[in-house]
């Protein structure tokens, strides 16, 4: 086992045991490193260390970004419980020390896509100190087909590069037109979409247009460049009845299949979810508003489920999260659960399947 791996393991343990912040952890890790050298462990695997160092030279910088997602704000002011939760998440992110490189908002800022909801959300989310990237969810979109959202936040589909990683933000909540024929009002269209257990619900897609855009976007990217994709719905098929699902997931996965390190981070599911399909690792995001029960079927094997939330605690089973990128471009994902220990899903655990056992308190 390499020193680097051991350090990561320790980091995992340390953070989950006492919630150390990153700076404190670094101190601990350095201290542990010194200890390891003292006991002569470095010498026994020095050649590996050299190899690692060589890799570092060509790899990406390690950095941290945070996410907040699925706040489902209603036009009921800052005192409403969902608004309070989003404010809490913004405060928590701002208290991170050191600050994350940026914050990704994972979609469903609003509940019914209303201008008042999106305005309230914009006002609260503008409070995050790091740079903010926005992603759209179905609740933001289906009242006015994204008009206000685009006015406030710009294009829903885009990409950017950060410290050697290529980031892609998709609008994965495209569905076929169900509203024109029955002449639905904008609010009827929104409510139809907002109901998770709607028996007539339509499956999410990325759609032909965006797939074309994606394929074009990726054509300029070196295959060794790590890719991180943000999508609101999981880019795989989990449970169709609740739209924990993207209907053309396979096509998107195929477009990403030739890259070395690919991570998809999705919202919508309001729960801890881990999956791996060929070269792609998938992580869910927490909701700030409420946790969803796990689907009755389709939960990926790698997923360690959270405990059932305590209904008597408004903040239980909800939260936000951070993502630590590794030098090879893969990521360790941390669910920051309010009133519980953080839940860490390291790349090491995902790729080996080892250590994925339910924790005592998440």
């Amino acid at each position, binding site marked *: 086992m390499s020193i680097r791996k051991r350090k990561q393991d320790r980091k995992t343990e340390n953070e989950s045991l006492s919630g150390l912040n990153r700076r404190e952890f670094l101190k601990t890790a350095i201290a542990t490193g010194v200890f390891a050298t003292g006991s002569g462990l470095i010498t026994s695997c020095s050649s590996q260390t050299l190899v690692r160092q060589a890799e570092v030279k060509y790899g990406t910088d390690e950095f941290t970004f945070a996410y907040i997602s699925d706040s*489902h704000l*209603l036009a*009921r002011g800052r005192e*409403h*419980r969902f608004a309070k939760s989003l404010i809490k998440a913004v405060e928590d992110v701002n208290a991170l020390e050191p600050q994350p490189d940026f914050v990704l908002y994972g979609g469903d800022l609003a*509940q019914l896509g209303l201008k008042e909801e999106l305005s309230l959300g914009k006002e609260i989310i503008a409070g995050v100190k790091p740079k903010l990237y926005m992603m759209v969810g179905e609740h933001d979109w289906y009242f006015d087909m994204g008009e206000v959202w685009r006015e406030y936040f710009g294009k829903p589909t885009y990409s950017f590069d950060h410290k050697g990683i290529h980031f892609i933000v998709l609008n994965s909540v495209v569905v076929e037109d169900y509203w024109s024929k029955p002449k639905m009002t904008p609010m009827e269209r929104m409510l139809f979409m907002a*109901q*998770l*257990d709607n028996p007539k619900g339509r499956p999410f897609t990325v759609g032909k247009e965006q797939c074309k855009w994606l394929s074009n976007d990726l054509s300029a990217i070196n295959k060794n460049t790590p890719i991180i994709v943000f999508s609101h719905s999981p880019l795989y098929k989990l449970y169709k*009845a*609740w739209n924990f699902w993207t209907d053309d997931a396979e096509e998107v996965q195929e477009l990403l299949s030739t890259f070395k390190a690919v991570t998809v981070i999705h919202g919508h599911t309001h729960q801890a979810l881990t999956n791996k399909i060929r070269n792609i690792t998938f992580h869910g995001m927490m909701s700030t508003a*409420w*946790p*969803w*029960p796990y689907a*009755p079927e389709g939960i990926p094997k790698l997923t360690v489920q959270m405990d*059932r939330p*305590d*209904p*008597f605690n*408004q903040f239980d089973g909800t939260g936000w999260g951070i993502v630590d990128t590794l030098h090879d471009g893969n990521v360790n994902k941390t669910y920051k659960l309010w009133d519980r220990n953080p839940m860490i899903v390291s790349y090491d655990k995902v790729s080996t399947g080892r250590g994925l056992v339910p924790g005592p308190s998440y």
Partner: protein
Amino acid sequence: MKTTHKMFMGLIAILMMYAASVNADNNSATNVSNVIQQSNEQSVQIVTACDGKKKVIVEGYKEGEPMPEQKAREVAKLLTALMGYCEEEITAKIPETEIAIQLSINGDPFISVTAIEELPLVLVHGGKPHTEREKRIWAAELNRMIDTGYKIFHDPTLGTNGISCDMCHPNASNTHPETYPKFQTQTKKAALLRDMINWCIENPQEGKKLSDDDPRMKALEAYIISERTGVILEPGKH
């Protein structure tokens, strides 16, 4: 009472002697051969009564073969009971080994009863079995209650903050009606499903709780329970 008793004794006597047909029904012979064909040469005896409207098929005994007294009593008792419903056309099958009796009423498919005493239950409504129409009406009435519950569950009006049950409980998931009554650790009391429904109305939805006999509470319970069809009841489970 006395006449029935006499007839009953008489039936047993006849059955024990030849037991092909008690009744002067001319068609009984054809009936017998039909059944013999249907049952693939399996040996059966057919006893008819009430102008051929009542028929008891006794499996395991060839035509004309005498039955042991106990079997004959069983057949006689059944026929007597059936004759209490003279309007209906009833075919009863007494299997050779099973305890259950198979009944077909007015040509409907056979159903099982374990004792002759169950006959009145099968033949409710003045001796008529449930018709398809009745069953449709009952289902519609039940569905109306469930649908009302579905609507309330998917509507924020129970609360004051725009939140509805389905937002946190799609398909009523994690409401676990099958675990009630149970001790609710947070309130330190044994609770019924409706207590927890009221808890979620008052807390996440910031609404006013419903009284136990409120039709909306009944409808909510109906919907929540209907979503858990087939799940085993485990009161007290955490």
